[in-house]
């Protein structure tokens, strides 16, 4: 029945056209930079991460409150990180740093975590390929392959990684972690894959500070990209040329 086929084809094309036109209209009618339909639509569970994106974060140190540990606490809760009473070796994915300019006395407070470098030293030095950068820019440790040599911890200029020294129990389902492997901030990849923000970003917003902005650096319309264009910002240890995914304003 050729006529029917032709008709259904036409209908499909019509639908696609109408859908596209609708999306275009939504994008056009709103103020520039404010979009109803974001280009980076949430991907479905069976779709792999895309190399068209690069996840990143902006830390606005002017909004980060001295003494506040909401982001650190949220991270510990999300990943089930527990103190073993040995601060020097206890796992930490994110830490708060207090800095003071000795000349002016100006104080800064900011969180430091894995900077998700484009050319990550931890990935370079890993002898087994356990340390890797996902196509969307998130640097991870595949603990199934990690042999616990800790070269990556030595290589990381940001001291972002931790090593698990003890046998662990009661891990949380989304964050497997165990003795003899290295671990670090994952940008909450299990949440990002489900279209949610990292736990630290959520906690910071909830506390009313809004010092952390997370998003796609490759999408010029994302909130992150807009803020990165508006605010002067820098990479920490920019001299190393790592093109970090975490940028700082007000440092």
């Amino acid at each position: 029945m050729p006529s029917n086929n032709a008709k259904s084809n036409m209908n499909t094309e019509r639908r696609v056209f109408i859908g596209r036109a609708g999306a275009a209209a939504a994008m056009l009618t709103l103020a520039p930079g404010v979009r109803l339909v974001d280009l980076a639509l949430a991907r479905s569970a069976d779709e792999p991460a895309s190399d068209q994106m690069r996840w990143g974060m902006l830390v606005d140190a002017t909004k980060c409150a001295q003494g506040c540990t909401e982001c650190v606490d949220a991270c510990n809760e999300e990943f089930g990180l527990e103190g073993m009473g040995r601060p020097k070796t206890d796992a930490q994915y994110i830490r708060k740093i207090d800095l003071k300019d000795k000349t002016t006395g100006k104080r800064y407070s900011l969180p430091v975590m894995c900077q998700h470098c484009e050319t990550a030293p931890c990935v370079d030095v890993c002898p087994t390929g356990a340390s890797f950068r996902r196509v969307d820019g998130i640097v991870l440790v595949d603990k199934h392959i990690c042999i616990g040599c800790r070269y990556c911890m030595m290589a990381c200029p940001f001291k972002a990684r931790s090593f698990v020294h003890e046998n662990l129990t009661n891990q949380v389902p989304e964050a497997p972690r165990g003795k003899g492997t290295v671990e670090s901030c994952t940008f909450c990849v299990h949440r990002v894959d489900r279209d949610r923000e990292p736990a630290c970003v959520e906690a910071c917003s909830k506390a009313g500070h809004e010092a952390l902005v997370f998003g796609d650096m490759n999408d010029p319309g994302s909130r992150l990209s807009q803020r990165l264009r508006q605010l002067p910002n820098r990479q920490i240890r920019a001299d190393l040329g790592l093109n970090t995914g975490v940028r700082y304003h007000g440092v």
Partner: protein
Amino acid sequence: MRAATAVLSWALICATGWTAVAAADTPMPTPPRGKGEQCVEPTDVMRRDHMRFLTHQRDETMHRGIRTKKHSLVECLECHTRKDTQGKFLPVNAEGEFCDVCHDYSGVTMDCFECHATTPRQPKPASARFPAELGSDISFRLRIAP
């Protein structure tokens, strides 16, 4: 008499089937039933190939960010963990629980649960997360750089 016994036992075998006879001879593991009617694959396929499904899913999720639920270990826990009388989840690898029964029977050690959770996420008492003396020590929580 002997012929009669043979006929009788043959009739019994035909009636009950070979598997039942084998089961009578060989003690088989009987893991506790999971939730629902049917697992994500037929039971005999799961028995033989669950480790292959898990390994495949592991790499897909870790490296490509694919988060389908069908062969996810986290989802296994949703159906195959039981609760004790106080309503607390029992670890899936604890003695007599789902994973343990067959793995104990076949003498195969699992590495999964050295890292992976053995129960669905359950709220922990606040005291278990941070010991009180550490919780009040600000330098531990802030990690102030020297």
